[in-house]
């Protein structure tokens, strides 16, 4: 209650601060501002006699023509050479520009002219417009009814006109589905399946679902291997990293860029733990701790995919993602942590 009272008093104080000052007259006349130089007339007209400037302009026009024909020649002979094409076309235009500006300043009459401004608001005419509009409604008795019916019709028109916007895209139905489920093999971007023995500590691998659709946002995975002492997964995920191999969605949960930076510490005592960093807004996640965010704007952890190694030694998904991958939206499945 005390808080509410204080809030109200702050709002009242703000209102006092921002209260509109009283209107000053809107009259368009400015007699008061004209001051001492009200009589001063700056009009002047100077007719030039400047043959050297005229010769210079003619010369520049010829230079422009030379550049223009040069462009034609370059276009016919060199065709795709942007430097020569741009140089000649630009040269022509710049020569034309200088010619026009010199002509405007030195060759033609120089004039300073005073024009008066229209008074925009003419009281009588404004009043006449109001009256003419109102006269159009003379003799109409059921104004309220007509305005109400018009409003309903207008709303119906807007709704009917706007409805086809829904054709632009599908409903959100499959938004939680991904291509990853138990048994899907991890392959590289050439379609070769990954063996668990391919994954080395200190490197980062991009994996895609076998026979999947690589152009979908959910396809890309980051795969890394960490020594056991660097893996501190939450307890429900203890079995997700066979042989210390971990897989995460490659798509940053902040703004859907593919994560492409992997920091692996070389000097133990001073470096931080192994981390993924997104190159777009530098959200940084720890693969050893279930994708926990340690820096940057991402609002949630990097989704982890449980892995298993099959009898032939290939890496396979041991299940689907437990939370939504990609950028967050209203009511996204965030996962537990």
């Amino acid at each position: 209650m005390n808080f509410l009272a204080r809030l109200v008093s702050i709002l009242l104080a703000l209102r006092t601060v921002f209260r509109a000052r009283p209107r000053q007259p809107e009259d368009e006349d400015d007699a008061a501002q004209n001051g001492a130089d009200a009589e001063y007339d700056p009009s002047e007209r100077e007719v030039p006699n400047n043959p050297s400037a005229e010769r210079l302009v003619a010369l520049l026009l010829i230079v422009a023509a030379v550049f223009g024909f040069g462009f034609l020649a370059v276009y016919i002979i060199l065709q795709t050479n942007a430097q020569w094409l741009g140089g000649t076309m630009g040269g022509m235009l710049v020569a034309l520009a200088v010619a026009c500006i010199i002509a405007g300043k030195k060759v033609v009459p120089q004039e300073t002219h005073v024009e008066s401004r229209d008074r925009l608001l003419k009281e009588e005419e404004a009043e006449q417009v109001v009256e003419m509009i109102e006269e159009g409604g003379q003799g109409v008795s059921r104004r309220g009814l007509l305005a109400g019916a018009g409003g309903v019709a207008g709303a119906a028109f807007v709704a009917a006109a706007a409805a086809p916007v829904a054709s632009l895209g599908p409903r959100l139905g499959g938004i939680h589905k991904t291509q990853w489920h138990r048994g899907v093999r991890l392959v590289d971007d050439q379609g070769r399946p990954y063996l668990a023995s391919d994954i080395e500590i200190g490197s980062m691998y991009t994996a895609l679902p076998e026979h999947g659709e690589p152009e979908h946002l959910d396809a890309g995975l980051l795969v890394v291997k960490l020594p056991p002492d660097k893996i501190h997964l939450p307890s429900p995920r203890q079995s997700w990293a066979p042989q210390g191999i971990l897989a995460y969605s490659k798509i940053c949960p902040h703004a859907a860029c593919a994560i492409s930076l992997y920091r692996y510490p070389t000097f133990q005592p001073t470096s931080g733990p192994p981390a993924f960093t997104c190159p777009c807004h530098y959200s940084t996640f720890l693969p050893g701790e279930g994708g926990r965010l340690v820096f940057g704007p991402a609002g949630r952890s990097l989704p982890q995919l449980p892995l298993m190694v099959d009898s032939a030694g290939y890496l396979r998904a041991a299940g689907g993602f437990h939370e939504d991958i990609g950028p967050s939206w209203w009511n996204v499945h965030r996962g537990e942590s």
Partner: protein
Amino acid sequence: MSRLERKADQKLRHFVRWNEQRVGAATGIKMAMRYVFPDHWSFMLGEIALYSFMVLIGTGIFLAAFYSPGDSQVIYHGPYTLLRGEQMSEAYRSVLDISFSVSAGLLFRQVHHWAANLFVASIVLHLIRIVFTGAYRKPRDLTYYVGLLMLMLAVLEGFAGYSLVDDLLSGMGLAIAYSVAMSVPFIGAQLAYLIWGGPFPGSSSFLPRLELFHILIAPMIIAILITVHLALVMRQHHSQFPGPGRRERNVVGTPMWPAYALRSIGLLFAVAGILFLVGGLIQINPIWEWGPYHPYLSENGAQPDWYIGWLIGALRLMPNYEFAIGNHTIIPNPFWGGVLFPMFVFGVLFMWPWAERRLTGDHRRHDLLDRPRDRPVRTALAAAFLSWVALIFFVGASDRVFYRLQISYVGQIHFWRIAIWVIPVIVFFLTRGVCRSLQRSGSHPLRAWQGVVLQRGADGELRLVDVSPDRDTPPDTEEPVGTVPGQEA
């Protein structure tokens, strides 16, 4: 009059009469030819925007004749050997072909890209000029709102343009745009699905939609808004700075015909010429180096075109806060930097004329511009606001600072999260102080060097001499304003 001139005179008379007999526009033509443009260098900024828009239309038509918005995956066999055999979208291949196979294609693509950068830059500088000189006041507030709408559209239009290429860089940009759309509370996911035609990277109708927006809808709206903007300018006449004979109710300057028309056409040629020189000689967005986009790929050190920089700065600066109730996300993080921040900036700009009227009670019509120093509070507020947006813009390049200068990225972000709030406050008080002291001194730092210098006179004595050009004391009289401490007898 020579025979040639007499003939030209006859031809002209014949042409004007021919036109009058059909159109009867002499009154209008006379008015247009006598239309007065007040002179000030800063009035060129809007013209530069208009002329770069013309260059954009011209080069854009050429590019549209070759661009193909297909998303089907094809194998590249073109002349650029490093990408041969690479799988890519049809759209990306068509832009590679524009760059390597179409005659003058690369020139037009690079001129188009440079012109887009210049277009937005000149609009922003024009806006800054308008705000600092109070040109947005009645009756030009309407003109100002139309201009703000054009700026918003220009930013969107530029983003749509470089996103059409479907190279790695533009694909990452679209992924971020998709995430920003998703982050809108309640409706975001459905909104993104409607725009993209399904989950990212979208259905095969997405690139055609983007092309439709880029080459028809946005340019058409911008062209209509330019027409309204210029019609309003003509109806009210240009504003002007105060000066001899210049009053609220008149406009003093150069008539359109002939001097101003020649100078303005000269500016058009200059803008186009510089764009063609730069577009021909200086590489921009070498898309063949980025490679094709696939959602599972990204590139390090990616930077957008400059006018998106303020948004990437805001996205990078934002702490990882999301508004959630229990385990339910209500507002995902990209909303703050990607939606709320630009909405706030444009909201402030849209409110500015109304807020000033309300706070000062000044509802009069103004046709004379203010010198920034004469409105210290407005100038200081605008400078503070500008510095806030500009700092966030520069934070977008913090990774380049780390890369070049080895200053910790994490440390920079922690620093800027506080500094972007502190520095604008300092800028406010500094600007207000500078304005007030300039008002008191009446000096013109931009017009001429001025101040007090130490001079040794013929008698060997050191004196402090005021050499400001527009003081009451002309500099040549060299009247001493004081002596050097320690030199006094």
